[in-house]
């Protein structure tokens, strides 16, 4: 795919929200995640000539770039001394921001991103956000029974995705 064939604005409109959610879940920092996604599209635009659409979708390609960008951001963050009130150095950084923890959340978030929007929605709302099926049903208009069946199939799909992405992120997102 050449630059002329890679419609960066269309790709941004279609995938940036998922990419920001993915990066924010991994990094626990939405502003940093948004910066990362800008970097993802910059790298994508620069390397559009090297992308072979026969080897995967634009979404897959962008997430592959995002894994690298997120890991780089996590490592850079650990090298920066956090700002503290009295100018002293904090005793210990939050272990959830350690690169290994970021990579683990990235693995989970990537599997989540691979689900269909409907499957992802029920997992996010019910399990991650702790809402009742009835509550989600009222908001979406989808029957509770349907949401529960979706949850079943979503979790089965996640099982498959988690097995798939295990090998992809073992090296910190570099393939």
């Amino acid at each position, binding site marked *: 795919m050449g630059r002329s064939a890679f419609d960066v604005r269309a790709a*941004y409109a279609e995938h940036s929200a998922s990419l920001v959610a993915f990066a924010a879940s991994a990094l626990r*920092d939405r502003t940093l995640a948004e910066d990362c996604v800008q970097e993802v599209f910059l790298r994508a635009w620069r390397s559009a000539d090297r992308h072979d659409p026969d080897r995967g979708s634009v979404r897959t390609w962008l997430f592959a770039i995002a894994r690298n960008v997120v890991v780089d951001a996590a490592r850079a963050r650990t090298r920066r001394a*956090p700002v503290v009130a009295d100018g002293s150095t904090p005793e210990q950084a939050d272990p959830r921001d350690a690169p290994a923890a970021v990579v683990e959340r990235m693995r989970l978030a990537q599997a989540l991103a691979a689900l269909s929007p409907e499957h992802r929605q029920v997992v996010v*709302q*019910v399990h991650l956000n702790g809402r009742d099926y009835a509550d989600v049903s009222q908001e979406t208009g989808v029957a509770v*029974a349907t949401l529960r069946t979706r949850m079943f199939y979503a*979790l089965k799909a996640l*099982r498959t995705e988690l097995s798939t992405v295990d090998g992809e992120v073992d090296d910190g997102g570099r393939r």
Partner: protein
Amino acid sequence: MDDADRALLAAAATGHLDDDERSRLDALLARDPAAAAELADLRGVLAELEPLRDPAAAWREDASPALGERSTGTTTSAAPLSQLPRQRRPARRPAALALAACVLLAVGGVGGALVRGALDERAQPAVVVGPPGTLGAVEQVSTRTSDGVGATASVVAHTWGTETVLDLTGLVQGRTYSVVVVDQSGRAVAAGTVLGTGGAVDCTMNAAVLRTEAAQVQVLDPEGTAVVSVDLPPVTA
């Protein structure tokens, strides 16, 4: 197994069964051995997702600013997948959040772990004492809190995880706070949530992290900032 059975298993896995449905689940498990395996598999996937239940790591697909428009603050009209009121957080209040996280004041005055005897089922003083990690013993731990928040904390090691006993004050009324146990790899496992009352909050939470693996307990405000932090002594025995 039909879709009704699958729906039942999904609801069981996520903990949303009523009494009638529990009876139906029991019947399903009794007549179909494969159903139990399916249920275990579903629960396994949900457990694996635990690190994403950290409020700061919440999955949120908001409309994203169009390229080049971030600096102007204009946004696209693309609809989010779904958005909850409690998910709507300010993008970041840089200095305020950073400072809040860092202005953690040492309180509690308990130097190191002090393990006390627990109460047994008859509310009699038990003889369970020992070093950190002793099953069933109450381990009082030191806390660090942000300004205006008070906390005392104990943890109890169990075979199924770590119980956290918290006495909290200063939590803002109506706000939802999350309690997480962070293991040694940095994985935060949700122990539960509490609503601030403006007064004292005494609560007991459980997390599926063994005490031997647990490194920290944190109480996080809705923005994900730790308002209470507890560094757990390593289990050496």
